[in-house]
């Protein structure tokens, strides 16, 4: 069996004295779509922030492509090919759509590919091409998510983490964005989806992990997990 693309071993993450992630372990094989589900406050977002380097883990190890990336800062991790689409899109609202996207090719290793990547993003989300000169702060929630996804793609990632991408969006928009995510996955990028919408996450993913109170309590292929198992893990009953 080959090395997983991402391996998280016993990670603990704290805010002050508050333990948000207690002891999380998971593996993401190359080329997969993996869903991480769990209720509000289970520690999913903190785990994503910790993997991407926005937050320093207090314990545990994180390996990406077999290399130890524990405790590296976000700007060092993204150049290795791991990109996070953070919760709530976090566009640069006072910058135009195109400037937002170009920011994605800030790492020197991908600057040469900027033009090609830009074309690719515009192909994936034609609406962004129309609005390329608008301030991203003036866009709708769905379009902002597209900017955030596009921006992450510009960094040319091998693994891309989506943190609650569907939060607060209309069902049609969610469907559209999920279709794009599948396309992104088909073109060879490994995907991790963090979701509260269990149904959609299970339908899309090839592997599901369930988080509860800061721990990954269940993981397996969606077809092997019964609804009952997932419910139990999700609510902790």
């Amino acid at each position, binding site marked *: 069996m080959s090395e997983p693309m991402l391996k998280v071993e016993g990670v603990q993450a704290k805010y002050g004295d508050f333990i948000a992630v207690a002891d999380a372990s998971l593996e993401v094989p190359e080329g997969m779509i993996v869903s991480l589900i769990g209720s509000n406050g289970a520690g999913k977002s903190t785990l994503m922030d910790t993997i*991407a*380097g*926005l937050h320093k883990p207090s314990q545990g190890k994180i390996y990406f492509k077999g290399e130890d990336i524990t405790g590296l*800062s*976000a*700007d060092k991790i*993204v*150049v290795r090919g791991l*990109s*996070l689409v*953070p919760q709530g899109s*976090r*566009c*640069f*609202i*006072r*910058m135009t759509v195109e*400037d937002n996207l*170009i*920011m*994605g090719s*800030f*790492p020197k290793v991908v*600057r040469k590919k900027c033009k090609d990547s830009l074309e690719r993003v515009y192909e994936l989300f034609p609406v962004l091409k129309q609005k390329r000169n608008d301030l991203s702060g003036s866009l709708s929630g769905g379009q902002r998510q597209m900017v955030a996804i596009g*921006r*992450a793609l510009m*960094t040319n990632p091998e693994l891309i983490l989506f943190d609650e991408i569907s939060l607060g969006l209309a069902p049609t928009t969610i469907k559209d964005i999920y279709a794009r995510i599948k396309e992104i996955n088909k073109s060879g990028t490994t995907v991790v989806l963090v979701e509260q919408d269990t149904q959609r996450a299970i339908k899309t993913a090839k592997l599901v992990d369930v988080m509860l109170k800061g721990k990954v309590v269940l993981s397996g292929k969606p077809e092997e997990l019964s609804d009952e198992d997932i419910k139990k893990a999700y609510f902790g009953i």
Partner: protein
Amino acid sequence: MQVIQVIINGILLGGIYALLGVGMTMMFGIVKLTNLAHGEFIIIGAYLSTVLANAIGVDPILTIIVTVPIMFLVGMGLQSGLINRVMKIGSEPALLVTFGLSIILADAMLLIFSADAQRANVPYNTASLRIAQGLNISVLDLIVFCISLATIIVLSIFLKKTYLGRSIRATSDDTQAASLMGVNVNRTYAIAMGIAMATAAIAGMCVSMKWVYYPSSGGNYLLTAFGVVVIGGMGSIPGTLIAGLILGLAQVIGGANYGQLIAYVLMVLFLAVRPQGLFSK
């Protein structure tokens, strides 16, 4: 005719005011730091320029070729060595540290250069262009205005069009998202301070040609710079230009005795009524 003369003088003064404030507005908008030492940075720029110009015997304008890179590096060092560290403790300690720096620098300059008044002498000091009967434009004022405007335009193009400039704007919008794009936030802050110092070098050179200055003049220039930040809206470069013009006009209309006073009162009123500035949403 006199009204036009006043307006022209106000606009010319506004140009250098905008330049005084542009470095401070950058620090404010990007690093979220109120740099109370910015006035002293400007005066350091003035002394460096005067000393250098006298030593080699060149026009003070040429000295910026040397002073700008020096001040840029000093700014980067200061930010990464000291201020980034203090900002981790909190924003109030950071404010007080820049206050401490301003006091230290002012007195250090007093030790080095004594309290004597300084001014760079340039041959076009008193020259003026006659536009019409009773309407004159000082050559020096015009040169200073052009330098100020050019600096601000170059800076905005840099921020708009380059990778580094975009990364600075991105950091000012959302530091975490910027770091997810591969931006080293601490380094960006250092660069922003370097740029702010570089603009202070140019502003100082302009100050040294236009006005008499002392080691203790920093406070006045800080408050003017702060006025530009407040009226223009933090981090807004076009706002900086408009704010400079407003303050310049207020100063010229108030005259020698009350100009500064009127400008200060205007700033306090702005702070009370519209603290986010004219050009901030």
